[in-house]
């Protein structure tokens, strides 16, 4: 069952950057791009576990801060020449409020 968690205002997430939330499903990176689109992916780079919430966000991509792997935020996949994927989570932004969708979690 999908539960939506309120994360607060979009203003708390720096544009072209990110923050993270601690959840029972692990740390999740909440990333915001230049068009105020917000993405949520597991906060562990598939390469060496780098915190993606500290990476550079641009368009639909985040650059891992540890070794510069690029992760496609829509597919949750590392971009060539790297291989790997991260779990992505649904996000909704309504009235500047950010909501994160998690399976089976009571808010």
């Amino acid at each position: 069952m999908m539960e939506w968690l309120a994360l607060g205002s979009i203003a708390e997430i720096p544009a072209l950057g990110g923050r993270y939330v601690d959840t029972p499903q692990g740390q999740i990176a909440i990333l915001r791009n230049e068009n105020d689109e917000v993405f949520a992916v597991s906060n562990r780079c598939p390469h060496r576990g780098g915190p993606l919430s500290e990476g550079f966000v641009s368009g639909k991509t985040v650059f891992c801060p540890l070794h510069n792997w690029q992760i496609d935020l829509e597919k949750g996949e590392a971009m060539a020449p790297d291989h790997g994927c991260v779990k992505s989570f649904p996000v909704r932004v309504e009235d500047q409020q950010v909501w994160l969708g998690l399976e089976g979690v009571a808010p």
Partner: protein
Amino acid sequence: MMNPVAVQHRKARLVVVGNGMAGIRAVEELLKMAPELYEITVFGDEPHPNYNRILLTPVLAGEMALEETILNPLDWYAEHGITLHTGSRVTAIDRVKRQVLTEDGYSAPYDRLLLATGAAATIAPIPGNHLPGVLRYRDMSDVEQLTRSSELGGEAVVIGGGLLGLEVAHGLRARGMGVTVVHRRAWPLDKQLDARGGALLQKAMEDRGVRFLLGKESAEILGDTHVTGLRFADDSEISADVLVMTIGIKPRIAIAQAAGLQCETGILVNDTLQTYDPRIYAVGECVQHRGQTYGLVAPLFEQAKVAANHLAEYGRMRYQGSVTSTKLKVTGIELFSAGDFMGGEGYEEVTLLDGSQGIYKKVILQDNKVVGGLLYGDTSIGPWLFQLMRDGTDVSAFRDNIVFGETHLGDSGHAGENQASRLADGAEICGCNGVAKGSIVRAIREQGLFTLEKVRKCTKASASCGSCTGLVEQLLASTLGGFYDSSPQKKALCGCTDFSHQEIRDAIIQQKLLSVRQTFACLDWRHPGGCATCRPAVNYYVRTAWPAEGLDDAQSRFINERAHANIQKDGTYSVIPRIYGGVTSPAELKRIAEVAERHNVPMVKFTGGQRLDLLGVKKEDLPQIWAELGMPSGHAYGKALRTVKSCVGTEFCRFGVQDSTRLAIELERRLERMWAPHKVKLAVSGCPRNCSESTIKDFGIIGVDSGWELYVGGNGGMKVRAADLLCKVKTHEEVLEMAKAFLQMYREDAQYLERTAPWVERVGLDHIQAVVVGDRESRQQLAARMDFALSQEKDPWAEAVSGRLDIHAAPLRRVPA
């Protein structure tokens, strides 16, 4: 402009005759050093922009398209403001009026002239040599003509069994023609191979369907309106539909000769590539230097670099001739040859012959040094052998095994400069991405990679922190030999823009761009969000140009500089407070110890820079730890001033002649919080024993009896570089001013992520000395700009503790399970 000494010239005019690889490489090198110095005009008699002549063979063999060989598209000329005349033959140089004249009646005045006229194919002086169907193999039009002729099929005869002859034979055979190579000597490639190697090569080519007629002297080309055949001196004949002459090349010196420039085989030049007329330089195949002419690309590029250095008025390089090696570009045939490969009296040989595998190796030694060698079938040891030869290494320790290559040698012998070639295949080159030497070399060979960018893309090596870039470049150079093109193909900052670092910097200054966002918008960035390469660079350029008004964008800072701590592999951080000059106190040490204990810091370690590192700290604990330490940030995480290392000095040391600790503390207090293109390390030693290792620092200071010696551009780490002596001064104040001026010049001039060592090498010590030491006014201006920039910076830890700076330490939200 930020450069205070940029003297306003009327722009001098540089005319380049020859639009080929040597001439344009010289122009590229020149643009790197002095992009604004000249108004440049290039004349080329071919209709194409500069293309890679080395790749004519793959084009002829149908393995590559013509367009893929273009090195500088027309846009490149336009972009750099170069006037290009293609299809325009220069017919005369008027040295009195200082202008060149073209066939079509055009004249162009010059202040400096660069001749890069190249060489032409030699045509044998035998009857019939101008018949239609007699072709050469020299440039793109020859390839086009050969390709057209091959479409009709039939028989091709190639006169000359040298490198070009075999390559053209291979190409025409690949296009389906019957091919016979006619050669005067007893075996093909006699300038690169001995009889045994020649026999192996002949067999391999014959297996590919190429026939050989050896020991044959051509006497007359037969035919009335078109080639029909060739008659030899022994009166035998062979029929031919196409005849290609590849008996050699000769430098094109006619216009130089007519202008009274001294010529022999080529245009005579000195070690600065100047001709008899000091305004006229010459590079490339048209040149004769110390009695040698060259037809390979590596020497031409070396010449181009030196000529450019002098044209740029740096005047600090000499060309001293090249040692060359050759490879044959026929698919599937591995051949390498260098130096004296024939041997004979006074020489010793080590050979290996494996006929069944088609492998032949021969190394020629003289006085236990490699003077030449040839490798056939397996050329893997070629680059190493070539290195031994160039370095003049004494090989007595491993001479018996030399044909097996260095992997069989253990650790003995060879002290070359090339660290990478000495490493075993399994050695890790790129520590970030775990890429071993073997996989890089394999990728270079198998995927035909020629540039650093391509290697990065295909293997990830050097794609992250970039600290192994030097090693990867060495691997490219040693794997490809002279074919490695070290100039980046695209000089754009990154894939988000076509502008170079310098163009972006100029725009930020001239158009007063005050933020990353503004810069991206103004310069039409392809991705409005930029990328991990351009964002930090542009943010740095904005802050350096506009220290007061420029916006420092946290999201364009690397994580370390955003969190003001060093991120570790597990996502924790390390905290290094500033300990000025490495001098601390019992009270300070107690405080650090207490903080570490209270927060259960997993590791406390002394750094290499004489301070203490608290490792394994969670991001959310950072502000609290900073508050409890009550010490300023050590900027150990930044592209910034790190430490000023010191020795004990006169205070206690019985050898000390200067008070090094006091100077180190002063320097660190005056320069702390300085952001830079890359990290900056200083050291002060109190006597020439140099215990602080000042000579491998970005700015190193050594106390001597009469004052201080100042060194710049040193580096430890993977690529060690000993610092250069900048100057000698007497007082602390002078040291401070020199340090500020040098570092400010570096801040304003170096590209983002360029350390001082490569920067000093790129711009030249002389230039830096002229600006920083030689010109009092420019020194003071630089120091003043540094002071102003530093006055705008606050201690980030204190800012964070007081709540004025938000590093987003805590999570957005915690959700209980």
